[in-house]
């Protein structure tokens, strides 16, 4: 079963709770366990652009993220594990779940 771990930081300017070494160690652990399907971290929020297309095809391009929320999506992992308990374990080990951060666990829909 595939799950996406959406990694949120508390806010854009919240102090980073974990080091680059923490992230590298986590990434290595997950890859060596063979659970990682894909993963990326996202560039700074100031680089975000939102696109909408209206009913008559007109395009609206605006600066910034789609939703103005305190929590900022900073990256994700897609992992393939047997069940939610295992997915939650990987989320809990992720440095992004510490401090003011949070990791949302979402099953990938199967069609």
């Amino acid at each position: 079963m595939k799950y996406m771990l959406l990694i949120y930081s508390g806010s854009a300017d919240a102090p980073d709770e974990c080091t680059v070494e923490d992230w590298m160690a986590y990434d290595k652990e997950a890859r060596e366990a063979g659970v990682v399907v894909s993963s990326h971290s996202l560039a700074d929020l100031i680089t975000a652009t939102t696109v909408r297309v209206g009913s008559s095809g007109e395009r609206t391009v605006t600066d910034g993220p789609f939703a103005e929320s305190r929590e900022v999506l900073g990256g994700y992992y897609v992992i393939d594990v047997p069940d939610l308990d295992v997915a939650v374990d990987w989320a809990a080990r992720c440095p992004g779940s510490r401090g003011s951060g949070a990791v949302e666990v979402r099953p990938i829909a199967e069609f």
Partner: protein
Amino acid sequence: MGEWAAGARASVEAVFREERGRLLAALAHRFGDLDLAEDVASEAIEAALVHWPVDGVPARPGAWLLTTARRRAVDRLRRDQAYAARLALIAAEAERADTTAPVSDDDGLPDERLRLFFTCAHPALPAADRGALTLRSLAGLTTPEVARAYLVPTATMAQRLVRAKKKISEARIPFRVPGPKELPGRLPGVLQAVYSIFTEGYAASSGPRLQRLDLAEEAIRLAGILRRLLPAQREVAGLLGLMLLVHARRDARIGPEGELVLLDAQDRSRWDRDMIDEGRALVLVALTGGAPGPYGVQAAIAALHDEAADEASTDWPQVVALYDVLLALTPSPVVALNRAVAVAMRDGPEAGLALLDELAGEAQLRGYHPYPAARAGLLHRLGRHAEAAAAYREALDLAGTEPEREHLRGRLAVVETADG
């Protein structure tokens, strides 16, 4: 024939009531889908109602039901494309899953209920639905019965249960007992789900009825099952003990007019002595062999009340000491409130009132009627009648059940007619 058929039917229903939880747990574990498990469990029982009166009750009724239900499930999975894919997956995973099912008894049905307890109380499910799901799945109540228990329309409860089961199935919440490292983190959730059934049965949050004994008894029955499944877990003993020690007072808690009678005014000769003895034995288990947990400590407090001949001779220093332990284990303003009331009994109303006033700003006590009610009681004892009346009115505005309001109105009338 008619008589025999009626007998067979009663026997089928007795098996179903007793074994439904076990049947469901075994099927849920096998197929990973609570909805499917419920459907085929019902179909198996219907098949039993058709076949047993003709063919006779099988030697191992539980095994017969399980086999029949399994066949129905496999048939259904074969017909359903989406399910078929899942079946293949489950078959593959069954290979690597642990196959240490507890030894089945002579009924032929393995006992997988502990898995189901942990699934129903999984932290990924809404806290409010965990008790309902446990009642539905493990106590064998029907959805309308669960709805009545929680005083909500059947359609509302059905929707909540469907949503919870959908999450179990689609987010793949496993049917498994957490390992020894995880267990201390997960067991409190299971105990909380069972205890929430008990407290729901005791203090209906609204409506004219003060307590629903059947619900309290279901919770005690569920805790009894847990106690057999987890004999080494002292907090399970603590929870069962706590519920027995509180439930032992059920008859004395309701007056002749259906009104609430508080502990200090209860006729203690009406307490259930056998139940108290059973509870006290469990307190010993809960408090022996290591640091106690919160249920064990609460059970010990309940036992001190149950052992006392009246309020005055209650061992209040010991009650306060146990609340100190409880407060350290589970710091909460509600525990602090109960501790303050016990301090008032030990050291006098002034000392208790000072502690209550320290809690005035707590958000958790806002809208919680026992807080102003406790203040009112102590103010009354101090002869500060106008303040007591104001506090009783505040509590009245918040109290949920009619018997609780009636009780508060009675107290208010007393202080309003008192001098000063």
